């Protein structure tokens, strides 16, 4: 079936112009790769799975496609990353409910006394979907490429304290690999929960700079995870099938026969499909829909606090936002609790730093600071030299320049609403906030580019379990992509540097608190809230456990009873 779609495409090639060089390259790469997968899967065709839980198809839908595909070197999008980690590829370790590492691709590991050596012992019964065994060489290959600056892996900060290149990794035998660190540091196991191991035998000839863009990720991925790739209609859907060769020691083949990921860009259409049962999971349910989903007896809302914070960023490099009092006025002039109430039905927590509620360093007492106080906002703005001299409702400075801020954001429903509410509330204290929706790529390139041609913006900042805020606030990173604010403070720097190196959490907690207090004093951004992730799930899908580890974290344990399955 998959080969037939390739055949159809090949047949249509003459129309496309078989002189398209790239098409030929892709056909040359994907043809044999997928053929090998087919024949490998064939060898399991005799096997039957008797237990009644086996079988069925599940459909998960979201409003955006998986842009990064199954390419472990493209970590730009959270949903793709989860598919890489849990669906198509494998990571060395996973986390249990208490966020402690448990074996996955690696069956055990040990560290040296001084925590500068990390050795993994891999399982020997894991095979790539085309039949090749997964070995330590694949891990070595993944590390070398991911830490290579030429690849431009987005999370290269993971390997900051690893020795570079071949000094950092050593293959001891086919299933044993050792990493060499320069310094012991905080949460050093976290990267291995997040990085999907990639197949060396297929990709080692690809130049590093082309790796993250390689069509392998979206046209013919070959992984070793519980589900293998069947087809991808760009912008429409992905279809995966159960991997019959998944190790018995990890539970064997997943219960579901097929897993379909559908893209439905229109939220109301997606809701309609959920309610009629065409879709089993609405990933990223709009907060306003939660009530009607909960009312439907066939559906349920799965919600959990998420490791993300929504904030309004201010470019402190420009004169009108350089004064800390102005930024603080913007925060106290916004009624964040009411925004949370109105836009998210109160499901979430107002915060004052980028530390999400789920992180162990989160301090609830800090969230009470900067309550809504329009009088104080007005006072701060006046003190900073902004008065409404011409009576038009907007403050001006001495030169007569109005306090208007060009506010960029990626226009989804929630951001649009938050921006408009902030506009109305800040208008009351004399600030002219001008929301401007901008398409995602243009938006990202504007805020990331070194020219920093923006004034204010809104972004949902998702963090890994290992929190490293140096890219955001450290002076040394001030020209890097994530230093939107531009503030530089030596005290903050010292905290940032120290926090990474303290390996004991109890020791680190008070330091984190002090760091956050200092950040609140400097007040670079208006942090809005840490929110919950909500999904609409059809009750017939059982065994679903979605939590802070991810929506898809236990997809291989999902099952549907025979009587509830879609026919045939």
């Amino acid at each position, binding site marked *: 079936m998959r080969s037939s779609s390739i055949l159809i495409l090949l047949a249509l090639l003459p129309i496309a112009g078989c002189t398209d060089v790239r098409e030929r390259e892709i056909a040359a790469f994907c043809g044999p790769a997928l053929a090998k997968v087919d024949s490998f899967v064939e060898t399991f065709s005799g096997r039957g799975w008797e237990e009644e839980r086996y079988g069925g198809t599940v459909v998960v839908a979201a409003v955006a496609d998986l842009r990064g595909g199954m390419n472990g070197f493209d970590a730009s999008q959270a949903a793709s990353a989860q598919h890489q980690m849990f669906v198509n590829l494998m990571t060395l370790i996973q986390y249990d409910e208490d966020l402690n590492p448990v074996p996955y691709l690696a069956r055990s590991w040990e560290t040296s006394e001084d925590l500068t050596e990390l050795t993994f012992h891999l399982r020997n019964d894991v095979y790539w979907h085309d039949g090749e065994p997964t070995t330590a060489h694949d891990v070595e290959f993944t590390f070398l490429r991911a830490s290579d600056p030429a690849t431009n892996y987005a999370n290269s900060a993971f390997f900051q304290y690893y020795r570079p290149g071949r000094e950092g990794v050593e293959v001891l035998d086919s299933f044993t690999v050792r990493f060499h660190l320069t310094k012991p540091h905080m949460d050093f196991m976290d990267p291995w929960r997040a990085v999907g191991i990639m197949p060396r035998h297929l990709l080692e000839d690809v130049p590093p700079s082309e790796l993250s863009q390689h069509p392998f990720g979206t046209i013919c991925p070959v992984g070793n995870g519980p589900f293998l790739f069947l087809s991808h209609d760009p912008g429409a859907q992905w279809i995966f099938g159960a991997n019959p060769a998944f190790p018995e020691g990890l539970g064997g083949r997943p219960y579901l026969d097929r897993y379909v990921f559908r893209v439905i860009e*229109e*939220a*109301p259409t997606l*809701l*309609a499909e959920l*309610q009629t049962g065409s879709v089993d999971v609405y990933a990223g349910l*709009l907060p*306003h829909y939660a*009530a*009607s989903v909960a009312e439907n007896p066939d559906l349920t809302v799965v919600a959990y606090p998420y490791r993300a914070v929504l904030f309004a960023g201010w470019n402190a490099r420009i004169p009108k936002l350089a004064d800390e009092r102005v930024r603080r006025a913007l925060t106290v002039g916004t*009624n964040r609790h*009411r*925004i949370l*109430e*109105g836009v998210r039905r109160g499901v979430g927590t107002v915060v004052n730093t980028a530390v999400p509620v789920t992180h162990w360093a989160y301090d609830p007492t800090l969230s009470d600071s900067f309550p809504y106080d329009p009088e104080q906002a007005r006072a701060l703005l006046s003190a900073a030299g902004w008065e409404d001299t011409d009576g038009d409702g907007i403050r001006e400075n001495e030169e007569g320049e109005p306090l208007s801020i060009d506010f960029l954001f990626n*226009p989804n*429903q929630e951001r*649009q*609403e938050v*921006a*408009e*509410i902030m*506009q*109305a*509330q800040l208008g*009351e204290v004399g600030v002219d906030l*001008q*929301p*401007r*929706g901008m398409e995602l790529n243009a938006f990202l390139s504007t805020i990331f580019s070194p020219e920093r041609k923006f004034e204010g913006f809104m972004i949902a900042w998702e963090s890994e379990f290992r929190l490293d805020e140096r890219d955001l606030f450290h002076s040394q990173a001030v020209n890097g992509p994530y230093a939107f604010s531009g503030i530089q403070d030596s005290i903050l720097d010292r905290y940032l540097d120290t926090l990474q190196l303290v390996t004991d959490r109890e020791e680190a907690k008070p330091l984190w608190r002090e760091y956050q207090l200092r950040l609140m004093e400097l007040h670079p951004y208006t942090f809005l809230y840490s929110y919950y992730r909500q999904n609409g799930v059809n009750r017939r899908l059982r065994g679903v456990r979605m939590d802070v580890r991810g929506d898809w974290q236990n997809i291989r344990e999902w099952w549907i009873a025979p009587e509830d399955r879609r026919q045939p």
Partner: protein
Amino acid sequence: MARKLGLLVPGLLQLLDRRWLEGGTALTLWVALLTLATTRFPRILQSLSEGLDGWIALLTLLLVLGGLWGWSVRDRMKSGGGDRVLPGGGGHLWTTFRRNRLAVLGLWIVGALYLIALLTPLLAPFDPAYQPAFQAGETGLIMAPPSWGHILGTDQLSRDILSRILYGSRISLSVGLLAVGISVTMGALLGAVAGHLGGWIDAVLMRVVDVVMAFPRLVLLIALVAFFDSSIFLIIGALALTQWPFTTRVVRGEVLSLKEREFTEAARALGFSNSRIILRHLLPNAMAPVIVTATLGIGNTIILEAGLSFLGLGVKAPTPSWGIMVATGRSYLSHAWWIATFPGLAIVLAVLAFNLVGDGLRDALDPRQSREVSG
């Protein structure tokens, strides 16, 4: 006595004369505007301080009231009643037009819409950007169904839908009129030039027309608006830029057929310059079909503008626009159907009215049709 009363109350005497159309319109308008002026007096004063919009609204109010009185007086002083005949061909057009009840209804609605749009600052019950839930703590007003307080309900940010529809009408109606106005002017001039001058100018121009018409108009519009940061001027410009070829073709055709007629030869023999011939002789005679397509085109333009806003490419927040209201309302369709439905109905009403007028004009201008009707 009745005459004196009649001068004071426009429309009354016309009604007594059984001139239902003029009388009815005038009287209704007069009553409505006076009611508005008296009941919303404080609002009028307040809107004067809010800037240009308030002044325009007040000016419109006064002008229309004054115009009604003036018309009433003038009408009384003319013939003692019966059908008035306007000079020239226009009179015949109007007579035929007004026999078409539907067309007159359409004209009435169009007039009412524009009047409402101009008077919006005085009519709208609330500020369209006011969010009582977030600015005053009335969280119960989020997505409130239609009620006495909010006749058409509120949206997800607790803004009044009726007020937003009223303010949105200003965008749609002005964009429609301006875009079509510009495109018709441009298109007519180009068409007349092409038809009259002929030669390579004609050839080049018609090729350009062919190419622009080959485009699916929406795609070109989206590309123009998305790539060049949207503002209302860009939207009007883009709409005009994609519509002029239709007018050009029609006008050129008319001009070509007119060329055969004698008066063009005569004008040329008399030594009139090309531009004079084009402007004063050719264009006025070619305009009949153009007016029809232009009127029908306004309806289409309103739909296109709504479509652009629907895709998120229209005017920016917090300015309301019918299209963007339908788009946001879509997300809440199952909870609050009124957010998407009423703006859509407003679009249908406006477009319907323009189409009725356009149809009426076409029927009135078509010589064969009018023969059927009057014969």
